[in-house]
């Protein structure tokens, strides 16, 4: 069986076959021999080749949250057939070109909008302030450019991933 995984911008396609005592997993280049403790519960023992890991793994909405040595990895996991279907559906343009979107990294409250449409910003310059978890977080320009759109309004609550402003 094949599975497509997405972690940030990385995509990975893994094939999984059963073998004596476990699974043979391959990404086409490397093959791993894996033992997987498949009981229920959020923390499992996983042996990849000879390395033992204690891995936290749980479904989180549409993604899998995997924790390893304290580090959280989020994966979109689909079987490869569906992945192809989805790729077709998602052919509706994108964020290519010189456009940079500022999105809310966490749900919060916009407390201050520092720039307006037409303003030139330098890379790293604060564009607005988002209060979350009782801290004020400056949302900075990812690169230099001109503000072409400002969606955020001071005093408005925003969801994670919500578009705040666009730089071109």
């Amino acid at each position, binding site marked *: 069986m094949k599975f497509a995984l997405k972690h940030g911008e990385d995509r990975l396609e*893994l094939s999984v076959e059963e073998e004596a005592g476990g699974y043979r997993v391959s990404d086409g280049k490397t093959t791993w021999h894996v033992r*997987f403790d498949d009981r229920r519960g959020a923390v499992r023992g996983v042996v990849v080749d000879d*390395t033992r890991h204690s891995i936290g793994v749980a479904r989180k909405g*549409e993604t899998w949250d995997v924790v390893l040595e304290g580090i959280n990895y989020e994966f979109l*996991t689909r079987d490869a057939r569906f992945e192809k279907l989805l790729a077709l559906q998602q052919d509706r343009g994108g964020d290519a070109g010189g456009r940079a979107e500022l999105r809310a990294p966490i749900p919060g409250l916009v407390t201050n909008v520092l720039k307006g449409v037409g303003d030139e910003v330098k890379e790293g310059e604060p564009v607005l302030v988002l209060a*979350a978890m009782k*801290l*004020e977080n400056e949302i900075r320009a990812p690169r230099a450019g001109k503000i072409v759109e400002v969606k955020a309004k001071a005093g408005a609550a925003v969801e994670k991933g919500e578009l705040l402003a666009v730089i071109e």
Partner: protein
Amino acid sequence: MKPRKIRKLLVANRAEIAVRVMRSARELGIRTVAVYSDADEAAPHVQMADEAYRLGPPPAKESYLRGDLIIAAAKKCGADAIHPGYGFLSENAAFAQQCADAGVTFVGPSPKSIEAIGNKVNARQVAKKAGVPTVPGLDRAAKEGEDLSALAKKIGFPVLIKAASGGGGRGMRVVREAKELERNLREARGEAAAAFGDGSVFIERYVERPRHIEFQVFGDTHGNVVHLNERECSIQRRHQKLIEEAPSVAVDAKLRAKMGETAIRLAKAVNYHGAGTLEFLLEPDGSFYFLEMNTRLQVEHPVTEMITGTDLVKAQIAVAEGAKLPWKQDDLAPRGHAIEARITAEDPFTNFSPQAGPILGLTIPSGPHTRWDAGIREGGAISMFYDSMIAKLICWGTDRAEAIERLRRALAELVIVGVPTLVPFHLHLLADERFRKGDFHTGFIEKEFSMEGIDRPHLEEAAAIAAALEYRRRRQETPQVNGGNAGLPTSSAWRVNALREGLRT
């Protein structure tokens, strides 16, 4: 109001500190009362309490900062005392006074003591009177809109802006250039107002490369005051402490005696009773400046409890009941070394951005000389409404090296699924040679430490393999007509696919 035995204690706080306080109360046979916002209806502190009362909607201003509702709940349920924890109303003299007026014991110092030293500006004046050195700065809170640029120039940049009320780094800003002063003042006021209901701030000289050393003091209503040694809190980021230790590598017995004596002198100057902490800046040459006093229990009190074999919450309750301190100064010599890692829901790989989300899995460290203080549990959630600190992991060792190794071991056991946390930051820091040598200062994390070099591709591979195998397992566990809730994602695209797949099999 006369002190009296406490039989029912309302804990006017949430999360780990509310749980912590209730544990001691329960051990004393005191009935516990929780209060909660709508976001916390099923939170651990509510589950642990004998009784629980709703305060209001999630924002703290409408719930945990509503002293009137809290006192009304105490009166209604017959609680004879209120423990404020830390944060929220813990250093609010008016609230302490309202408790007294309502005939409810406030587990903390008197309103007068809070007023006299809890406010940073007053504290500087108390210190000056007592002959204790402070950092040069403004001796009063700045007025709204006041032009401070001339003063800042006089003090000399960099300057530090601090909220007059509260602590924990909120409302704090370092300003290095005159042109940045105004914006920072505005933001600091905003943060302070949101966090403490008081937007007044003041400014002082920003000391470079100092250590943050604080002394735990404890007084009773009979005039006795002792100190319980120092804590080393220099590992911080944006004025939020991340690691705390006791004792400090930078404090020897002689300096401990000198600073401890200073701390006791200041506490006595304001007739202090209960638990309090005096914060100092310590310069490499051993000179120290008094910064401020926190008139409450600190987040990091467990490291003190571990080296002194005490329970500070029980002592707070005893003092509030009018008892004498349970210790003499000589009982409080430090034994071994303790270190605490704050587990916050922040992602150290994305500039410590705060995270919210469900706790899908939780494996708690335990074993020898290991303590876990938390306000989370599997099945719960981290809300965006409150502080991002979700737990504390504290380890003791016969010496600092052992305590550090034990904390590394315990951190490696800790697994929190669902929300990124500071765990990888702590593991990386505890392996750092400079940290292990004790060679750091309050700017260390921001200026000299980096998370680079921690990225390990083989971990990502193993994580991907685990995700694929888990997905496969869940699919195979639901061989019926419909995958239902057992393992498949909830979005409509996924569901359609799952159905299609299932029907085909």
